[in-house]
Structures are given as C-alpha cells and as structure tokens.
C-alpha cells in the first residue's frame, strides 16, 4: 500500500470530499499534511489577492460615486419605463395601429421664447469694415481686369471664329489666275459651236465671226487668250464646244463663248474664261458671313460618327456658293448635310483689284458630337 496520498486523493481532501481514512491520513502523515497545507496556503494567498484587488476597486468606485448623494429611487430611475420596455411584437402592432389611426397629438405648447442674440459685430476684432472694403476692391479689380483683357486686340482676334477656307490643289493644265478671264461672242441665240480657236494675240482687231464678209484689208481674226489646245476645223469656235450651226456664243463682246469681252469662254475681259479665281496672287479669300451649322444625319448620330467633310466650291461675285462638290467624303448622309448647310452660307466675295470676283475655295465642314 502506498504510504502517502495520491494527487487525486489530496485534491479530494482539499475540496472536502475525501474518505474518512484519507482525511485521517492527511492529518497524521507529515508529508501529506505538509502538501495539503502548502496547497491551502496557496489558495489562501489567491483568495487574499482577489479580496485585496476587489477592495481596491471597490474603494475606487466608492470614490467615484461620492458625488452621488441622493440615493432615493435610484434603481427605479435606472429601469426602463414600462411604456418603452415592450416586446418587439407589441411594438409592431402599435406601429401598424398608429399607421391606420394616427393618434391625435395635443396642440403644441411653445415653451421657448425667441431670444435676442448678441451682435456678431466684434467677432473679428473690429476689422469687419476693412475686410469688407478689401473684399469689394479685390472683386472689382478682378472684374475690371477681365473686361480690360476682353478689349485687347489679340484677344478679340482670337475670339473670332475662323472658317478654314483654303485654295484647292492646283491642276497642272489650268491657266494661271492672272489669265483667268473670259470672252464673249456677238450676241447669238445658240452657244458657241465646236471649231478652231482663232489665233491668240495681245489685242483683237477682227473678231472671229462665222459669216465672212469681203474685207478691205485681210486681218486674221484673233482673240485675247492664253495658249490653248487647238483643233483644226473649218470655222472659228470654242475648242471645247459642241458641233452645230456656226456660232460665236451667246455672250457679249468680240470673243467666243457665253461671256463678255474679247476672250474665250464664260466670264468677262480677255483670256480664257469659265474658271474662277483662286486665292492668292492678288485675289483675297472670301469670308463666310452667314454660316448655319450643319445638321447631323440620324444614322450618323446613332453610329456616333464624327469627322470632317471637305467640299470644293466657287464663291461667286455675290458671295453665293456655287458648284459645291465633295472632295473628301464622310458618309452616313453627312456629305449631303454638309452640302445643304454650305448652300445656305453667304460670303463676302473674294476680291481682285477691289472688285468682287468668283473665287474657288475648299471648305472643311466638321461634324462633332458633344
């Protein structure tokens, strides 16, 4: 038999659950008694430490509560009132009831009175007037600066919207702008017939008439025109014209064609007519005066299609665009819309020597979705 108590037995003795023999042994045996006493002492220390801690905390909380003198009904006041402390389902029932039959509230009793507040003046240490005047001065100065900047020339120039109008590409065989003149035949009902162009001379003494009369002095008929591709024919006429009854065109003057003057083709003066002037070389560019915005086509709007249409046109002497052609297409109906818009445009015509002249130009019409 083990002369001493096991750990379990000592534990049992410690909690007062040991058998009488075990208790007796613990009392008699020095070793077991010492072990038990040691454990009890430890527990006693533990108990003491807890009590001390608790007393300290208790003391601290007493110190904190020392201000609370009136203890009457303090527990009652801590309790939530019965009217508030309701179960959740009762709360829902009451809410629904109040939703259907909203309870009539007693008339509102106004228990507060308006109070006159102290003036805010003085909050900023008496600098209110200075600050106010300073603020006004700063604002006026900024506005004046903006207005002044608006009157400056570069700014006004920049504010003007500039329509991109530029000269079309030069074609190699086109006559030079200085030679861009026309001529007109003696007034006849039909257009100039196809035929051999008369000799080109600086001055026309004898017009190229189709009905030859007996001349006193034979002078070959000439026109004032640049060198042009000539054709061999039995009569004088427009080398670009059509075959038919001989005619010098329905223009006015001594030339050939529908124009006016001693040259050839449409237009006036001498030279080769029909072509408009081009910008540069003494010819000023036309300026758009009225320019309605182009409309967007429905398809392009749906497709969110953007870009630019390049148009070529001739601005005549009256500033009306003529002969509008699409050079760079955008598609989706935007070309047509661009042409429609540019047809409504009106220009200040381009000028040469102070006179309005027809000028050919290219215009880029931008389509942008905002």
């Amino acid at each position: 038999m083990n002369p001493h108590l096991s750990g379990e037995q000592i534990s049992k003795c410690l909690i007062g659950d040991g058998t009488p023999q075990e208790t007796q042994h613990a009392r008699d045996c020095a070793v077991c008694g010492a072990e038990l006493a040691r454990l009890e002492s430890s527990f006693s220390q533990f108990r003491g430490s807890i009590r001390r801690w608790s007393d300290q905390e208790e003391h601290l909380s007493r110190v904190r509560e020392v201000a609370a003198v009136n203890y009457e009904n303090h527990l009652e006041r801590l309790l939530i009132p019965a009217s508030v402390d309701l179960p959740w389902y009762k709360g829902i029932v009451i809410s629904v009831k109040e939703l259907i039959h909203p309870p009539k509230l007693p008339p509102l009793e106004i228990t507060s009175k308006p109070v006159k507040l102290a003036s805010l003046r003085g909050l900023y240490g008496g600098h209110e007037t200075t600050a106010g005047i300073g603020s006004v001065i700063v604002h006026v100065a900024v506005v004046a600066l903006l207005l002044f900047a608006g009157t400056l020339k570069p700014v006004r120039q920049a504010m003007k919207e500039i329509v991109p109008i530029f000269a079309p590409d030069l074609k190699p065989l086109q006559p030079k702008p200085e030679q861009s003149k026309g001529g007109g035949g003696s007034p006849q009902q039909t257009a100039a017939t196809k035929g051999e162009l008369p000799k080109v001379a600086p001055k026309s003494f004898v017009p190229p008439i189709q009905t030859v009369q007996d001349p006193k002095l034979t002078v070959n008929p000439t026109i004032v025109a640049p060198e042009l591709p000539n054709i061999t024919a039995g009569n004088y006429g427009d080398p670009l014209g059509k075959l038919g009854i001989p005619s010098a065109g329905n223009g006015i003057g001594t030339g050939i064609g529908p124009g006016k003057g001693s040259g050839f083709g449409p237009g006036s003066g001498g030279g080769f007519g029909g072509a408009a002037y081009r910008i540069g070389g003494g010819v000023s560019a036309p300026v758009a005066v009225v320019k309605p915005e182009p409309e967007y086509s429905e398809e392009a709007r749906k497709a969110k299609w953007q870009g630019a249409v390049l148009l070529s046109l001739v601005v005549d002497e009256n500033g009306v665009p003529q002969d509008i052609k699409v050079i760079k297409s955008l598609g989706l109906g935007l070309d047509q819309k661009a042409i429609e818009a540019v047809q409504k445009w009106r220009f200040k015509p381009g000028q040469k020597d102070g006179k309005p002249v027809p000028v050919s130009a290219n215009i880029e019409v931008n389509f942008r979705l905002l």
Partner: protein
Amino acid sequence: MEKGLLPELAPVAEGPCPGELQDFDSLVQRHRPRIFRFLLASLRDREAAENLTQDCFMRAYKARDQFRGGSSLGTWLMHIAANLVRDHEANSRLKFWKRKLRYDVDLNDVGDWMPDHQKSPEALALAREQVEAIWRAAASLSERQRTVFLLRFVEDMDLLEIAAVTGMKEGTVKTHLFRAVQSVRFGLEEGK
C-alpha cells in the same frame, strides 16, 4: 480552512428576511462587495464586473417579488451573478476579438494585491509566483469549473451552497471542483 476569517459571510447565512428586500439599498450595500468580488475574479475585467454587478442587483430588484426564501439571499444573489457570468461568457464567445483583451490582466499587478507585506521578500516572491500560477490556471479553466472553483476557494462556500448557486447537483459540483483543483495543481507544479 479559514472560515473564521470571513465575518462578512455571517449575515448572508441568516436566511431571508422580509424586511431586507424592502430595504433594497442596505441589501445592495451589504452584498455588493461579495458579488463584485466574485464577478471580478470570474471575468478579470473591472468594467465588466461593475456592469454585471449592477445588472445583478437590477435583476434581483425586478424579480424581488419572486423570491420565495427557498435559499439565503446571498445564495440567491450569487445564483443571479453566476447566471450573468454564464451569459457573459456565451456572449463573449461570439465577440472573439475581445477575448485576448479580457485575459490580458497584467499579472505584474498581482504583487500589489498580495495580502500581507510583513513576510520576507523571498516568501513574498514565492507567494506571488504561486498566486500568479493559480491565476493562470484559473483563467484556463472552463466557465463552470472556474465558477465552482472560485465559489469554493474565494467565497468559501460549501458544496451544497455551490450546488444551490450553480443549479447543479452536488455530485456534478464535486466532479467540476475536483477537475478544477487537479488543473490548478498541475498549473502550480508547472510553475515551480
């Protein structure tokens, strides 16, 4: 055991007195230290212990009509406190992020709580080590074991009282207490 050293237990053992519940303020005054101590030892958290002490008396006040005098007032209050501890443990099990904080009682403070300072420094250091070991062991106990252990060795209740407080049978109390003491003993031996 040092039962004689616990004079504050004496009035509790007297049994219910009808006038005592009427004069609730004096009841609070008398029982509050004990309830607070138990809660403090159980939770190791002063604020939680104070709140639960408050709750304990609140519950007692609300249910004072239901007290039939089947046990002593002290036991009844301690029963409420033990239930509160159990609820608190269940709640804090959900609040797992608070657990670390709760067990983080600074054991260096234990020295300030040592009962008598007349001992020699060696004895004091030894006692301090033992107390720390018991604290640690108690903290690792399950909630039931800790409650039973504290009621037995801090509040000096006997097994029947503990059974009444915890609502367990005496045999169950014995089992829990035995396991708790075994754990604490192992803790003490490990600490040596």
